[in-house]
């Protein structure tokens, strides 16, 4: 049997160990070697303050009384965690960008940095947390009493009360030492977080150990335990559907709204990505915590005498089996659950009280507002307030414990407390998802919810006739029956808890909605609303300060008093550097004021920080016009970015055009090279024969007939050379624009006749298909040049058409801008990639100069047509090669 003194010694040693852990973690963090302190594992374990002593002891009692209903308390948070993408991610991001310090700060900050909302939320939080802290004191005291009784010296009421006050004092000392040692710029408590992570591991280990002992040590295995459940008093599934659903909702909402959960979830979060891990790891923790609850309850009900308190089965079952070591571990688990919850809850409440109640009062009491910021150490005031608040909250818890008699079943108080905390839910969820939510709506909802909760759940929780008299409870206040605390609006017969949850949440949400819809928000509210709701869109918000007359030195003095000399100087120096200035005093720009306000808000909350800066800057706050100006700036930025986009699209087009031009140039250059070698060859061949034959003429004796023949050959070759050179010359003359055009008139039909005669010269070969009756068009232009184009086109068809029976179709068509003459042959046509090139100089599609041309014909045609004011282009898709000569209206004298 464990001696009671040994138990106390172990508890003290455990506390000393936690001190060491917290101290070590603080030291490590201070040296900037956070490392594993910032791991997702620590984050996940720190969330386990959700599992308080109520869970540790109370869940088993709950299961012994109501079967499986206890799991709802864990299923709610599980759903919130696995659904972290919905709410928690947004909440954590807002908490980081706005430097939130508590749930009251969130509400106050969202609704225009309102001081009054901060006060309301803080008061509600303190009231609803008090029973819960009482519960923790009670459970630790009861667990001590169990050991005292086992040691043969049962505790009476006096000893229980004495034990409770010692526990309260011990917790206050520990919390003050580590929770308020420093006023961090970002309100993070590495030591505390590390200590509660260790405690989380201890309580899980303890509960699992007891569970394993119960299943394998007593019952004999999982199969046996299931059989025992079937024969136990809680054998069947008898759940009230409304309670099941209400409790899952309640626990899910409480997980987000409880001040202590907000502290570990949002304020102590160092890295958003930790949510990713905690999203499944914390549900796993909860699952393990609740896995063994029913087995322990069933075995306890079977083994222990009928009057035994099921809330303490976790301790009494191992003790009854003589497993003192296991009982000791289990005691430490329960102790850990209670202490970690109380520590975090009191820190969260102390932050809220100091930032939202004491500081605003302190600022208001000082008559000269400007002096208030300068004189007196604000830091000292804040820290003192927090220490006093911690002690005060524990005292309240203790008083509640004494008042309520400490006898009620643990679970009931816990659920009443939860319902009080979740009254923040409509304002919180509305605030982060709905821009239309306003301060008036939030205040109306919060007050309504709080009143309904107090009336239906909190006041009755003190026991019948304690605060609400018996008559009022049964007949309603002033005899108004429909205001009875357990049957509002005359709806009778509901489970009291479901009744309280339903009406408080329903009326709260309704008032919040109505109040928001019918009120108009202040500029700062609208600005904050946009920043909260669109937190993923705007990483940098628009400034709540526009112009300023503040003195940088005054601001520095004030900041030093709040966040400490070193931090404040560092912050100011960095800001000055960013502005390109030396020293500690930056220019007081709106940007700087906003950054400073954020920095201060991390310590004293948004409302106080805003008020303090507002006093120094003579209230040069925000107006609706400023908001509109901000929106205009945003619109201008958008406009500018649209212009940039258009410009870049235009550049893209230019680049594409340049690229295609470049490709064409490259291809031409290749062609030109090929042509140069070609033309050298062409010039060389006639030159060679001219030279040879002239040598023969000079050196040999021959007949006159032979002489004639050789001279004829020389003459022919010279003609060929001349033709080539003529072409080149002609082209260069045309290209330079030095050509003289002679105005002539004539019929199109005649021109085509002329061209056809020149090419065919009476020989057969190319068949030309025309409808002469349609060609009665009189032209006024340089006809010789035009006929040259026609000759070229017909000659090309004759030379290059590869059909067995070459034929050329010549058609005249009327288009909008004039007439076109199409020359279409029945050959293979020209490949698409070559169609671009054929009009270029020196372009030739076949390598061998099979028709003696130099690849200048079409280039000359194009130059001529350009000079004449018409055009020539390749006409694809005609079955053969097709060329279209356009004759605009100004070339036409008369039409048929």
């Amino acid at each position, binding site marked *: 049997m464990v001696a009671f003194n040994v138990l106390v010694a172990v508890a003290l040693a455990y506390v000393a160990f936690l001190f060491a852990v917290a101290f070590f973690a603080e030291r490590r963090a201070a040296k900037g070697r956070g490392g594993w302190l910032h791991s997702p594992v620590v984050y996940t374990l720190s969330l386990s303050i959700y599992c308080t002593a109520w869970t540790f002891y109370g869940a088993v009692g709950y299961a012994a009384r109501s*079967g*499986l209903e206890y*799991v709802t308390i864990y*299923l709610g948070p*599980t*759903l*919130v*965690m*696995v*659904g*972290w*993408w*919905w709410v928690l*991610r947004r909440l954590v991001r807002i908490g*980081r960008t706005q*430097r939130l310090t508590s749930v009251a700060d969130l509400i106050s900050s969202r609704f225009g940095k309102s001081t009054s909302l901060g006060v309301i939320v803080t008061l509600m939080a303190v009231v609803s947390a008090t029973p819960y802290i009482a519960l923790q004191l009670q459970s630790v005291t009861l667990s001590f009493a169990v050991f005292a009784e086992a040691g043969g010296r049962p505790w009476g009421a006096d000893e229980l009360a004495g034990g409770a006050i010692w526990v309260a004092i011990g917790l206050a000392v520990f919390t003050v030492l580590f929770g308020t040692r420093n006023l961090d710029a*970002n309100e993070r408590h590495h030591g505390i977080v590390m200590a509660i992570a260790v405690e989380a591991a201890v309580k899980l280990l303890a509960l699992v150990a007891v569970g394993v002992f119960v299943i394998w040590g007593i019952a004999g295995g999982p199969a046996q335990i*299931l*059989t025992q*459940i*079937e024969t136990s008093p*809680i*054998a*069947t*599934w*008898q*759940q009230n*559907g409304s309670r*099941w*659903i209400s409790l*899952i909702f309640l626990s899910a909402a409480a997980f987000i709204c409880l001040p202590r959960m907000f502290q570990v979830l949002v304020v102590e979060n*160092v*890295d*958003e*990505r930790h*949510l*990713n*891990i905690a*999203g*499944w790891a914390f*549900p*796993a923790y909860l*699952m393990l915590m609740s*896995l063994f609850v*029913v087995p322990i309850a069933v075995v306890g009900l079977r083994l222990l005498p009928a009057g035994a308190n099921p809330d303490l089965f976790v301790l009494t079952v191992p003790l009854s089996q003589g497993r003192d070591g296991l009982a000791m571990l289990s005691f430490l688990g329960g102790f850990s659950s209670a202490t970690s919850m109380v520590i975090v809850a009191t820190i969260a409440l102390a932050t809220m009280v100091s930032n939202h109640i004491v500081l605003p009062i302190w600022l208001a009491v000082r008559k000269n507002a400007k002096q208030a910021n300068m004189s007196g150490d604000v830091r000292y005031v804040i820290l003192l307030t927090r220490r006093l608040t911690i002690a005060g909250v524990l005292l309240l818890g203790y008083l509640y414990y004494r008042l309520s008699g400490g006898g009620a079943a643990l679970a009931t108080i816990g659920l009443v407390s939860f319902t009080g905390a979740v009254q923040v839910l409509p304002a919180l969820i509305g605030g982060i998802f709905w821009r239309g939510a306003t301060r008036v709506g939030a205040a109306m909802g919060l007050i309504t919810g709080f009143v309904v909760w107090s009336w239906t759940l909190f006041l009755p929780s003190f026991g019948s006739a304690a605060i609400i008299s018996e008559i009022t409870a049964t007949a309603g206040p002033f005899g108004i029956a429909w205001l009875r605390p357990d049957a509002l609006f005359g709806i009778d017969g509901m489970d009291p808890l479901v009744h309280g949850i339903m009406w408080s949440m329903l009326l709260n949400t309704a008032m919040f909605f109505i109040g928001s819809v019918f009120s108009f928000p202040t500029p700062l509210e609208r600005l904050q609303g946009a920043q909260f709701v669109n937190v993923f*869109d*705007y*990483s*940098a918000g628009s400034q709540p300060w526009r112009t300023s007359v503040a003195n940088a030195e005054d601001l520095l003095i004030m900041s030093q008093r709040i966040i400490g000399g070193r931090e404040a100087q560092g912050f100011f120096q960095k800001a000055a550097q960013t502005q390109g200035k030396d020293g500690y005093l930056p220019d007081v720009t709106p940007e700087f004021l906003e950054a400073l306000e954020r920095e201060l808000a*991390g310590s004293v909350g948004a409302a106080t920080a805003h008020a303090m800066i507002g006093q120094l800057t003579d209230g040069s706050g925000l107006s609706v016009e400023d908001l509109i100006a901000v929106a205009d700036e*945003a619109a201008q*930025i*958008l406009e500018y*970015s649209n212009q940039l986009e258009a410009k870049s699209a235009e550049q893209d087009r230019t680049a594409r055009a340049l690229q295609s031009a470049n490709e064409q140039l490259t291809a031409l250059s290749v062609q030109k090279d090929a042509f140069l070698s070609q033309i050298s060859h062409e010039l060389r061949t006639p030159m060679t024969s001219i030279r040879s034959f002239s040598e023969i003429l000079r050196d040999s004796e021959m007949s006159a007939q032979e002489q004639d023949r050789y001279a004829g050959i020389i003459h022919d070759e010279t003609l060929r050379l001349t033709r080539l050179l003529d072409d080149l010359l002609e082209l260069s003359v045309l290209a330079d624009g030095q050509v003289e055009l002679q105005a002539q008139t004539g019929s199109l039909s005649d021109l085509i006749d002329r061209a056809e005669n020149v090419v065919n010269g009476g020989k057969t070969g190319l068949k030309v298909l025309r409808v002469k009756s349609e060609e009665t068009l009189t032209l006024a232009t340089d006809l010789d040049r035009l006929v040259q184009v026609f000759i070229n086109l017909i000659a090309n068809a004759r030379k290059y058409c590869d059909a067995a029976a070459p034929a050329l179709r010549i058609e005249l068509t009327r288009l909008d801008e004039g007439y076109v003459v199409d020359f279409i042959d029945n050959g293979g046509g020209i490949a698409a990639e070559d169609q671009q090139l054929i009009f270029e100089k020196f372009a030739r599609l076949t390598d061998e100069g099979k028709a003696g041309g130099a690849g200048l014909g079409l280039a000359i045609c194009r130059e001529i047509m350009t000079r004449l004011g018409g055009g020539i282009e390749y006409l694809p898709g005609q079955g053969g090669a097709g060329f279209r000569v356009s004759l605009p209206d100004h070339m036409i004298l008369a039409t048929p």
Partner: protein
Amino acid sequence: MSLPPSQKAAFLAKDRYRKRRMRDLARAVPVIGGILLMLPLLWSNDTLNSTAIVYVFAVWVLLIVLAAVISRLVSTDSPKAP
């Protein structure tokens, strides 16, 4: 500063599209869980708790596994700690 909603891209590349759908999946998990956990309310009151306990914990494990798998598929872009 990212662009206002009207300027957001209407169509995404394949990998980003996939990421978005994984986020939808992440959002669906609590809905699935809620439905599965309401189902026992349809059971008769004679159902044995030994059955119910197995069901509830099986759903619980399913949710944990789902959340763990999805947490690997979605990634958050976290800004540096202030």
